[in-house]
């Protein structure tokens, strides 16, 4: 007979082992799925995980990992701060959109002036935009006790409407023959978030993500505020007795995650994407939630998780084109990853016992 019993202490070993285990299980069950679809499972798995890093055209895919991973990591870092304190920002996608709109808008306001000041100004505008969008659920929660999960999520749809409106109106390219979408910032030198070293994929968003990781790490391990975040998440009553001000914590955590999401949007629109368009957002804000949990809400873990997610996206597209795997199969594959991770979490707090129950 198999049963599970609570551990007296969460297992430190399992906390680190379960993400690896989840990846392995995803490979196994994903392989079964691919086999059922009539594809060679080993080849499919190899295409997804091996091809982008070590394949023939790795020189192209490796930089793409950074481009795809950077916004995920940047957003997930911010989300993790809140998640650790039990503050649930589900609306990073909206903050990402508003950050992009504000960043691009700040740059386009100066078109076609060339100046080194424009890009820093755009960074500021993007950060502020994302921050302000996140402050709506934050202030509503602090003042009126609303649920930040619902408010932040609903504001995503508002942001999407705002994005459509901007693409069709205020930010529409005057030379675009009436088509929706802004000017392409890649063709506007001062506003272009170009690669710092050509061919490496290293743009300012990647740099910002790395800085955010370091700051988050120091904050959580060395700073009083980081301590307050962790205590609030792990023992809310103790935190209260310890003098943590929950309202300030809500404002900080939501504001910070909004700011980082806004930055991610700004770096994306000024760099890899290039323009504000109706379909600018592709779900980074939601995927980042997966990345944050896959990385155990730990800054270093998030870097690994962000790169892993990026890998499955890039490898997934290669598998579609080379092996004819349907996109839905790739999505199921990615879904399995989160499923196994959450399911295996049980091993951190419980242990599996074989044999009959001992009589106490």
């Amino acid at each position: 007979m198999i049963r599970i019993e609570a551990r007296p202490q969460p297992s430190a070993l399992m906390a680190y082992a379960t993400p690896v285990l989840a990846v392995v299980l995803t490979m196994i069950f994903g392989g079964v799925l691919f086999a059922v679809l009539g594809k060679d499972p080993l080849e499919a798995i190899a295409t997804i995980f091996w091809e982008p890093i070590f394949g023939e055209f790795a020189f192209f895919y490796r930089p793409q990992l950074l481009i795809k991973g950077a916004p995920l990591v940047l957003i997930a870092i911010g989300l993790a701060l809140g998640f650790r304190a039990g503050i649930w920002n589900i609306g990073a996608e909206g903050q990402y959109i508003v950050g992009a709109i504000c960043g691009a808008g700040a740059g386009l306001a100066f078109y076609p002036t060339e100046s080194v000041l424009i890009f820093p100004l755009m960074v500021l505008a993007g950060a502020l935009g994302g921050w302000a969008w996140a402050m709506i659920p934050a202030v509503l929660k602090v003042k009126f006790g609303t649920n930040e999960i619902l408010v932040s999520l609903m504001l995503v749809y508002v942001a999407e409407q705002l994005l459509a409106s901007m693409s069709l109106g205020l930010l529409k390219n005057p030379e675009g023959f009436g088509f929706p979408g802004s000017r392409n910032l890649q063709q506007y030198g001062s506003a272009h978030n170009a690669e710092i070293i050509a061919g490496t994929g290293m743009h300012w968003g990647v740099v910002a993500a790395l800085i955010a990781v370091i700051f988050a790490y120091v904050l959580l391990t060395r700073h009083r505020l980081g301590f307050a975040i962790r205590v609030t998440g792990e023992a809310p009553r103790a935190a209260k007795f310890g003098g943590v001000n929950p309202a300030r914590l809500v404002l900080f955590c939501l504001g910070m995650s909004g700011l980082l999401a806004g930055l991610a949007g700004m770096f994306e629109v000024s760099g890899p994407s290039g323009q504000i368009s109706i379909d600018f957002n592709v779900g980074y804000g939601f995927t980042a939630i997966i990345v944050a949990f896959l990385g155990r809400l730990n800054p270093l873990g998030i870097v690994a998780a962000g790169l892993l997610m990026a890998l499955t996206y890039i490898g997934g597209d290669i598998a579609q084109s080379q092996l004819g795997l349907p996109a839905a199969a790739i999505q199921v594959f990615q879904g399995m990853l989160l499923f196994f991770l959450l399911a295996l979490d049980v091993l951190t707090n419980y242990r599996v016992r074989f044999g009959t129950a001992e009589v106490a």
Partner: protein
Amino acid sequence: MKFTTLLASAAMVLGLGGAALADGHEKTKVGFVYVGPVGDGGWTYEHDQGRLAVEAEFGDKVETVFVENVAEGPDSERVMTQMALDGADLIFTTSFGYMDPTNNVAAKFPDVKFEHATGYKRLHPNVSTYSARFYEGRAIQGHIAGKMTKSNVIGYIGSFPIPEVIRGINSAYIHAAKVNPDVEFKIIWVYTWFDPAKEADAAKVLIEQGADVVLQHTDSTAPQAAAQEAGGVITFGQASDMGQYAPFPRVSSIIDDWAPYYIARTQAVMDGTWESKDTWDGIGAGMVGIGEISDAVPEDVKAEALAMKAALADGSYHAFTGPLNKQDGSPFLAEGETADDGTLAGMNFYVEGIEGDIPQ
């Protein structure tokens, strides 16, 4: 620098591979980038039918690959690059938002031919653009709608207020008003190409407002289902035939038929005669198909509609023929004058008689 050199050398290798093609030693590889899933029953489905037609036409001489659900922006750029690296000779990119990415990738692979649907940028000699004159089909729908409506209210589900969609509304209105001067258009913008829930809601609202004809510029069959439920409301299939709702409420349809174009362009690459051009074909060239007009349409109306189809096909009639005024009463086309393609391509105004404003 290193990266561009690598890409260039990779492109050169591929170029050499491509050169071998003329001798018939190698398969021609044709790639397709889709914005939606192939099972959407509309836009992407019809492009995929075109791909299958290419395979059926050339058999062993071609290899086709596709990637579905590709987000516009950097993801599409990566997928196109990947196809080019994998040796594609010809790549069809089938969404407006792929415009800049297509041109970016085309610059790096001068020996690969790119075909971008519905765009207008051809920055490199290896980029072509193509689109269909769907407004010709709208003229026929307008005629049938104007004849058949009893309430004189025609509902229109608009996707995005872009020239493509506005052109369709104008064309349908002109021909409905021509046979029925009392006709009134009610337009709802849903800001999506494919969202069954939103489309169904829009259809219901239009029907509640008295519309007994619902035209749609969105791809799902949800409006057809809503009309069927309401009863006494006629609809037209969009992008694909939607024949499962025939003979009523669906009385006809506009079908995107990309097969002849895809076959011709693939043939051109095989023959080495491919060159950059802009194609805008209508009923005449077979790019726009008119689905069977069902028996729910009176015989005389059906005969008129077919006569109009024939006239549009042989060029003896143009869907935008004067006298026509713009919405504000200013002259648009003089008696007997027809709209030139430039005006049509960038159309951003309603014709006289349509109420309401184009959202900005």
